[in-house]
């Protein structure tokens, strides 16, 4: 078994197996961080590599994305901090140094040590595809990287095998102009039908390009035919105060036969925008990816950049991050529990829930200056400390909220009419949830026992004791009950953190961020797992920031859960997932 890498124990065996299995077909292997292992693979190995990791190690393909490095220097894994690696020129901007022997993307073979000599090699003429696998039980990520030559811009689809990457692959096709081969439905997705032929995430596309206004024929949905079948189009402007998206129901009578989604109405060029901002401003942009997950997204972004810069926030900052993440979870879960009740006409419960939610949001404002916890996150830690009186108020809130929330739970439990509407409604079966790779609370309500707080802990979570509730019925009631249980767990987490608040600074100085490093940041937000992957550029900027919100993964769950349900139940089924449109569309 190979041990030359400084990687977590759980990744040692998969790495050895991968090397044995694919031998000289795999290129450079690199571990910039103990739980983040990069492997260069040829493009035609993508499917085989995926199958191996999935079958042998139960790996989940959590993100697929591309990067345009046609003109980039670097990128042959110039990571520092691993045994045997030449250290990277410290700090500052400017071009990365070319190593003495010129360097190549050397194959490591079975015996070779990892080589740092690749730094500075121009990777002219290729795009990179990244496949991020999470090995949850082994607490490590394996990231496969494949080069796509610019003169042959196409890549094979994995959607037939891994349904969850459907939209992600099409997004690459739309935004990078890489043609998808073998995809069952390769139509446009991220860019709507009327968009001109532009590839916004290519480096030669200017962020501020002015495009002609929206016009052209309507989107052609798939037709569902049959006696008594008709279509109900909804959106993009909805009846409630929610985000825009288009739903097309095909119904026969009241039951839904088929639901088609059309998203990306609020595509704002966010990933492209990250590339033009100083990295410190990127934190504020990350807060605006999905408003109800402001702190989780900002923290995932900071986590990625901190890992790239090899800095660790001080213990008190990590504790404060944990408190804020749990406060975000509580206020959102409270709002959702209320909204689910109101969608089945139990408005009184909604009012109580909103009343409790308001108290949490006011505390957020008192602690961090903003009700959505905005402005709190920063690179290297957090911006504001909580003094003794603020911590006391936090403890007070948990102490008073707990019995009141328990009373609200009782009210909902007592309402048989509400239970009637929620049980067996919008069922997402565990099998389907696993097939689609559903994550976060929607997954845990359907038996998918995954939570980054336990499997990939950072911030303060490794020092805490808490349960991850998992239910298996997969109906709206389960998703409601899961939120309820998670709120009680969050109370317990806050109490533990507040009782053992470490002293000390709340921020580590970041300094100049070294260019040409890549890093994966992640946070279990209230909705599910959030990933930010960055490649740094000279001058404290980013060459690429990939954002993966759990909603992008979870939308297909809605189309499955609604089948056979009646149209009037759609609002409550939709609300029980409460996915982010802006997080999906970016």
């Amino acid at each position, binding site marked *: 078994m190979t041990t030359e890498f400084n990687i977590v124990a759980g990744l040692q065996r998969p790495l050895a197996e991968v090397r044995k299995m694919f031998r000289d077909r795999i290129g450079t292997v690199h571990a910039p961080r103990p739980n983040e292992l990069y492997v260069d693979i040829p493009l035609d190995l993508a499917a085989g590599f995926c199958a191996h990791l999935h079958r042998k190690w139960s790996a989940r393909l959590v993100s697929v994305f591309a990067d345009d490095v046609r003109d980039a220097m670097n990128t042959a894994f110039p990571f520092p901090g691993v045994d045997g690696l030449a250290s990277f020129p410290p700090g500052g901007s400017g071009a990365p140094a070319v190593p003495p022997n010129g360097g190549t993307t050397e194959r490591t073979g079975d015996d070779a040590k990892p080589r740092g000599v690749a730094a500075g090699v121009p990777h002219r003429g290729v795009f990179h595809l990244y496949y991020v696998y999470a090995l949850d039980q082994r607490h490590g990520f394996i990231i496969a990287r494949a080069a796509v030559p610019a003169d042959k811009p196409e890549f094979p689809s994995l959607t037939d095998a891994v349904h969850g990457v459907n939209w992600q692959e099409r997004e690459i096709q739309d935004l990078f102009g890489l043609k998808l081969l073998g995809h069952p439905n390769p139509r446009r997705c991220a860019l709507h039908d009327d968009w001109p032929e532009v590839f916004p995430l290519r480096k030669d596309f200017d962020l501020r390009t002015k495009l002609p206004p929206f016009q052209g024929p309507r989107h052609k949905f798939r037709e569902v035919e049959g006696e008594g079948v008709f279509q109900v189009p909804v959106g993009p402007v909805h009846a409630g105060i929610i985000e825009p998206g288009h739903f097309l129901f095909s119904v026969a009578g009241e039951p839904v036969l088929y639901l088609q989604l059309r998203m990306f109405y*609020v595509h*704002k060029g966010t990933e492209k925008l990250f590339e033009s901002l100083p990295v410190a401003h990127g934190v504020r942009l990350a807060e605006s990816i999905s408003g109800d997950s402001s702190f989780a997204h900002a923290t995932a972004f900071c986590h990625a950049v901190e890992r790239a810069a090899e800095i660790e926030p001080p213990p008190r900052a990590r504790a404060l991050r944990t408190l804020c993440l749990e406060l975000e979870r509580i206020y959102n879960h409270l709002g959702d529990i209320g909204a689910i009740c109101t969608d089945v006409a139990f408005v009184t419960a909604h009012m109580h829930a909103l009343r409790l939610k308001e108290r949490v949001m006011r505390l957020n404002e008192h602690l961090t200056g903003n009700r959505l916890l905005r402005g709190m996150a920063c690179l290297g830690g957090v911006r504001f400390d909580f003094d003794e009186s603020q911590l006391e108020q936090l403890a007070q809130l948990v102490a008073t909220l707990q019995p009141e929330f328990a009373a609200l739970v009782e009210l909902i439990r007592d309402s048989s009419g509400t239970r009637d509407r929620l049980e067996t409604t919008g069922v997402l079966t565990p099998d389907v949830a696993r097939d689609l790779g559903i994550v976060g609370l929607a997954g845990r309500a359907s038996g998918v026992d995954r939570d980054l707080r336990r499997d990939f802990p950072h911030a303060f979570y490794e020092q805490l004791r808490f349960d991850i509730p998992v239910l298996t019925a997969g109906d709206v009631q389960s998703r409601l009950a899961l939120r309820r249980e998670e709120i009680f767990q969050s109370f317990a987490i806050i109490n533990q953190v507040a009782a053992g608040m470490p002293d000390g600074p709340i921020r580590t100085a970041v300094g100049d961020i070294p260019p040409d490093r890549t890093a994966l940041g992640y946070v279990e937000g209230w909705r599910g797992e959030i990933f930010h992957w960055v490649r740094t550029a000279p001058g404290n900027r980013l060459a690429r920031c990939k954002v993966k919100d759990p909603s992008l993964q979870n939308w297909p769950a809605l189309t499955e859960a609604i089948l056979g349900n009646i149209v009037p139940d759609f609002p409550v089924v939709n609300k029980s997932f409460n996915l982010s449109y802006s997080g999906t569309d970016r």
Partner: protein
Amino acid sequence: MFNLLRESLRAGIVTTSYPATPAAVSPHTRGRPEIDWSGWRDVRPAAAVCPTGAISHVDHDGRRTVQFDLGKCIFCGLCAEADTSIRMTNICECAARSRGDLITEAGYTLKPDGAHDRMISPPSSRTLPLDDVAREIQARTRKLLGRSLHIREVDAGSCNGCEVEIVNLNSPVYDLERFGIHFVASPRHADMLLVTGPVTRNMELALKKTYDAMPAPRLVVAVGACGCSGGIFGENYATRGAVDAILPVDVYIPGCPPNPHALLHGILLAIDRLPERT
């Protein structure tokens, strides 16, 4: 049933008396920044840390014009950390009837090292005066719609942060309905369009169609830094920026997101129902 009543009685009345009484916000709340214009010696550090370009300057011929745009400000407070001439207040009621009201400019003479010397034109807003006809029409509209107002909300590209707070207006704490104001499901029932932004290219047409479906007279309120100015997104290949790039806007509510007090303030401002407070 008994439990239901008991819980409601136990909760009691939680509704705020705002706007009759001041907004109940924490002293830690970050609201509108306050700038010591006459003592300001160098805008550049604050401008460098501002993520949205709300603080900017133009240098010309030994003179510097400094601009602060409340419509772009996300109240992050980074400028106040970088510059002692700026202080964050907890005042969140910033709504204005004209975009120019949100923009303040002052002129300084420039020192060779790039700092300011002395203020040569005092801070003033960029409000454009309305002509009499426009003023008359606006007053009549406000009077006509000011008693029972129906609002249609449109998310034209927001991150959902503004929606989180707009939903809270229906909570028992803010209780918008006590003013006779309701959110409605269709633009055809609406007197006011409450729009969050930035307006994306993909939502532009839907926004226009929603506006066209409303009966006249009608009001449009732009919500949040992105709705007022495009915010941190600005204009790019996928967004058209501020709501007023697409529709005529009657009131602008700054904030990121505006807190519920600020939203109430802006909506009531649009229909002339803010109480006179001393």
